[in-house]
């Protein structure tokens, strides 16, 4: 299925969605397609809302963020998200904030079909005071008070992965992050991949492979994680991450950049963007 068709079919205004990828395999091409198709009022989950959610927030697609760390990793703050939170530009957004451990547990619990996750967390942390969805349960054996949070249950999850095969199975390797859980906890899952191959013969038996029956759409978008990276395909574009700090800091520069690099192009541009990053790895 083309990425255009998959986004048109599965992503609707007002939905609860998750785009995951923990530094590695971030689905940039899919985020751009959502922006191009003009989706609005999304509640967007992501442990680490980095450039893709900065772009989606900056373009007014998102009304609420659910997250645990909001930054351009290793570079700085997300200026479009800050502008939205601090000055309601282009619109105000609300947010629901957790820690990494909490979000990881919430995805895990969602994948496990549970309504909530239980863990040892937020001890002495003020987030428990400002987020009413951080509650507690008491261990019936020891009396220990454990943190409880709702599981993540998005309507649609989008991830990027190395490749699919003709049976519709999806291979993820390297830093696998939270991607398997993000797919399993969702009602529908879209996966962009670098390529489709005939089969996965000779894989290690314990490799992270998603069977066909948990994936609803597979879209081939070579380079689709750029400026994030795809292990065994191309490296992270650290220069692009650093440049984003400048683009994001200025409303007009941002608007122009989005016009040139997102609105007026299609998913096919990603392949060219990673050409210089292939090789060594």
């Amino acid at each position: 299925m083309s990425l255009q068709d998959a986004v048109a079919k599965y992503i609707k205004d007002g939905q609860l969605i998750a785009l995951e990828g923990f530094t590695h395999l971030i689905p940039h091409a899919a985020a751009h397609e959502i922006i191009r198709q003009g989706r609005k009022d999304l509640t967007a989950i992501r442990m680490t809302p980095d450039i893709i959610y900065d772009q989606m927030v900056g373009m007014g697609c998102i009304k609420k963020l659910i997250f645990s760390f909001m930054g351009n990793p290793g570079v700085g703050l997300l200026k479009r998200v800050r502008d939205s939170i601090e000055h309601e530009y282009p619109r105000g957004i609300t947010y629901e904030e957790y820690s990494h451990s909490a979000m990881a547990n919430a995805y895990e619990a969602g994948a496990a079909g549970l309504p909530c996750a239980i863990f040892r967390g937020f001890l002495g942390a003020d987030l428990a005071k400002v987020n009413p969805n951080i509650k507690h349960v008491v261990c019936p054996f020891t009396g220990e008070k454990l943190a409880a949070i709702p599981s993540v249950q998005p309507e649609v999850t989008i991830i990027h992965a190395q490749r699919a095969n003709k049976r519709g199975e999806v291979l993820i390797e390297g830093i696998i992050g939270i991607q398997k859980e993000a797919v399993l906890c969702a009602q529908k899952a879209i996966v962009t991949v670098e390529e489709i191959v005939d089969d996965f013969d000779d894989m290690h038996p314990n490799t992270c492979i998603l069977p066909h029956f948990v994936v609803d759409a597979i879209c081939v978008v070579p380079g689709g994680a750029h400026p994030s990276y795809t292990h065994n395909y191309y490296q992270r574009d650290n220069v692009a991450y650093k440049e984003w700090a400048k683009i994001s800091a200025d409303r007009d520069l941002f608007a122009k950049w989005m016009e040139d690099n997102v609105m007026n192009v299609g998913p096919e541009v990603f392949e060219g963007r990673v050409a210089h990053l292939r090789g060594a790895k």
Partner: protein
Amino acid sequence: MVDFTPDEMMTIAASRLLTNEDVCFVGIGAPSAACNVARLTHAPDITLIYESGTLGTAPDVLPLSIGDGELCDTAVTTVSVPEMFRYWLQGGHVTVGFLGAAQIDKFGNLNTTVIGDYHNPKIRLPGGGGAPEIATSAQQVFITSKQALRGMVEAVDFYTSLGHGTGGNDREDTYGVKTKGPTALITDLALWKPDPETKEFTIVSIHKGVTRDDLQATCGWTIKYADNVSETPVPTELELTTLRDLQARTAAAHSGK
């Protein structure tokens, strides 16, 4: 003797606190540099864990993010993020958690969430990430911070992660936390350790060339000193060369070659 910057002194002083037996949960920036300098000098068998899931990694170049490919390529194994937080951090295997912050108070409580009111922020910061649970699940916590009045404050605006709370045994008495909490604060000017009773950070060693006036001018609370304050040994040739080589390789790699 070679020249060195305060930043280099901070990183090297932090690296010296690590041992071969440590299992470190590493953040990006100064902690990452310190851990890798330790690994490349006196602690070759140290285990470095990054929250992206890389266990026992040995990067040749410092990662820009906590999930760079280099970390996975050199790791003993790479696990999922839920496993990392559940089995390895919460499971109690991390001996040292390394944290930094936008604001720190004298008890090592840290804020990386917000300046001003949470619901009406003056500056919205990135948030806690792994810190809230690293602070309580790691067996002990090292904090690195450059000294500055806006960073080292009497009271943090928001407890992103718990240090020693209001001091003394507050950490265990109020919150039931049994891990040690912050046991060292390494700044660009000095090395601080908590007083055994009050748990307030006190200066135990001052980096070469730094005066007590310099220290107080960059710290928002009235500094206490340990009974015996020494001068931090200056970086050795090996330490400095190792750090600079690492940073040079990193700069080359991150510039797109």
